[in-house]
């Protein structure tokens, strides 16, 4: 069978598996998909309480929007981060979770991490719609023209998360405590990404590490680029900077290619290692 035909068949399978994830996840829970919104909402409440109310970290002022809300600024970073983190950990455990399937049926295995990541897109889209509403209410219509770039940002972020998820999914089969390790890694990564704070706020503090401003180091973190880009659109109502756009494109493409290479290198023994 040509790999092209296999890919075409797999597209349908991918669609069905995404549906399974989406429908199966909240089946028989009273709130259903509502849960996917409540989770970030709770986080926003907690972080706002701690960082804005207790610690008095002031929010930036949105460049073109004039928005001045810690919660909105937080949401702009938190939603992409939560999607990314979900994609990484969900993609990672997708092979183990479907071990029975892998051992008994043949189909292109990369469909499993891909389906998990894509299923998260559904709730991510809903969350972004809520963010858009917040942005419209607080900052006016200025956000609308810049929305065109959002699908592209989501695409790059998906590629980034999927690439890492693909690589980790096989790693997790061979080393079962990859999952624990990644859990800690994601936590550290979260605080090294300007989600609960902004780059500007850190820049004002003027800290230096190894002779470089801290912001330079934080700028090396790909997730900083994504968060900054989402913030530019939804908080500042401007275009993301060219550097950020180039960065997210590169990061997305490189991650996806590398992740796929790692995956195909190690997928051969999956059925017996599971």
């Amino acid at each position, binding site marked *: 069978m040509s790999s092209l035909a296999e890919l075409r068949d797999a597209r349908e*399978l991918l*669609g069905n598996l995404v549906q*399974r994830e989406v*429908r*199966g996840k909240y*089946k028989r829970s009273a709130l259903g998909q509502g849960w996917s919104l409540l989770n970030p909402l709770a986080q926003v409440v907690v972080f706002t309480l701690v960082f804005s109310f207790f610690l008095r970290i002031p929010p930036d002022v949105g460049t073109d929007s004039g928005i001045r809300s810690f919660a909105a600024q937080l949401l702009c970073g938190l939603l992409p981060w939560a999607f990314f983190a979900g994609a990484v950990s969900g993609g990672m455990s997708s092979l183990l979770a479907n071990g029975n399937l892998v051992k008994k*049926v043949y189909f292109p295995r990369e469909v499993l991490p891909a389906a998990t990541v894509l299923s998260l897109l559904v709730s991510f889209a809903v969350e972004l719609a809520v963010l858009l509403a917040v942005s419209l209410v607080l900052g006016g219509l200025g956000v609308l023209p810049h929305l065109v770039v959002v699908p592209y940002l989501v695409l790059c972020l998906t590629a980034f998360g999927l690439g890492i998820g693909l690589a980790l999914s096989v790693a997790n089969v061979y*080393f*079962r405590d990859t999952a624990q390790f990644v859990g800690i890694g994601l936590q550290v990564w979260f605080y090294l990404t300007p989600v609960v704070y902004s780059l500007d706020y850190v820049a004002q503090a003027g800290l230096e590490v190894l002779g470089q401003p801290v912001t330079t180091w934080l700028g090396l973190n790909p997730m900083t680029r994504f968060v900054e880009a989402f913030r530019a659109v939804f908080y500042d109502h401007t275009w993301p900077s060219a550097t950020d756009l180039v960065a997210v494109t590169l990061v997305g493409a490189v991650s996806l290619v590398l992740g796929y290479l790692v995956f195909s290198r190690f997928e051969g023994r999956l059925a017996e290692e599971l």
Partner: protein
Amino acid sequence: MTDPAVVLDRVSKTYRLYSERNDSLKAAVMRGTRAKYREFQALQDVSLEIPTGTTYGLVGENGSGKSTLLKCIAKILRPDAGTVTTRGKVAALLELGSGFHPELSGRENVYLNGSILGLSRKELERSFDEIVHFAGIEEFIDQPVKNYSSGMYVRLGFSIAINVDPDVLLVDEVLAVGDAAFQRKCMEKFASFRAAGKTVVIVSHDAGSMRLLCDEVAWLEHGRVVATGAPDDVVHDYLEEGHEDRVQTDDGSRRWGSGEGVVDRVELLDAQGRPTTRVRTGDPMTVRLHWSTKERIERPVFGASIETLDGYYLWAHHSRDGRAVADAIEGSGYCDLVFDRVMLQPGTFDLSASLNAWDCQHVFDYRHRIVRFDVDEVLPRESGGPVALGTRWTLPTTS
């Protein structure tokens, strides 16, 4: 002749048997990068051609590599060396209903499972009713599958898999599913499958049914192909080999009873009174049960029964029904059961023997499958089934 459906060319597959598995990062770091493992060669240089349109059997003992071979054909496992070439769509019946999502309804699972097996939505919509009808679960199709009985679960799984309409169907001893009616439906489906010129590859250690089902058989042992060819020859050789093993490994599990008297051995004697394990349909045969006792046994009842190789219970006769019960036995001796004519069709059969009390409830010694014997063909022969009834066709008469 068309191209073969499946070609295996020098296929080898090695499993790693981990003595200390590095499945935690800590272990990997502490012990260096390499995990300790022994290699187990599941398949060695297997070359096979499975012709299109045949029903092909893979026989062998547990661990002979037949399931591994099937998984290599299904592409679930990737061989370490050699190539597997398949023509057309391949579907494997390895475990039915794997991939069902318990919370989703039967309907949703049909679409999901179907697409896992490679069916498009259109194809599924076309065969949806047939799938549900075949599984016989019309009323429950919108229920979550977690509420299904295990039988319904497996039936739905089988029904989807068989309706994938593959060119090559791989079956791994999963046919013992559902009730008798469903089994019959499955066998009919198989028959129509074969009639449609599709290729079926069956793995089983139940050699008896393989002989009837398959056009061609390959016998695997320790990951190598020992023989291929017509099922009668190959299965016969396979069973012969298994037979020798069986006698040597004859252990207590095949024998039970309180032991006051035992059946030491059983001899089969031909018409001239010579020991044999081979008779022809319609020949006379004597079964001689050699017994010995530890104490005097009042009114002992000797029993004998015959099973086919796949365990089908064909016949039994004990000496109480035979009205030949002695008042008592003591010491040792033998007891004969005479067949004037062995009314069995050609095949291989197992004879079990026992020594029981008069009530036929208490067993002194039961020797399960103590002797295996072959029945050879006499022409003209009767055509099917295990028993010969001594029938004879006449030429058609025009009235």
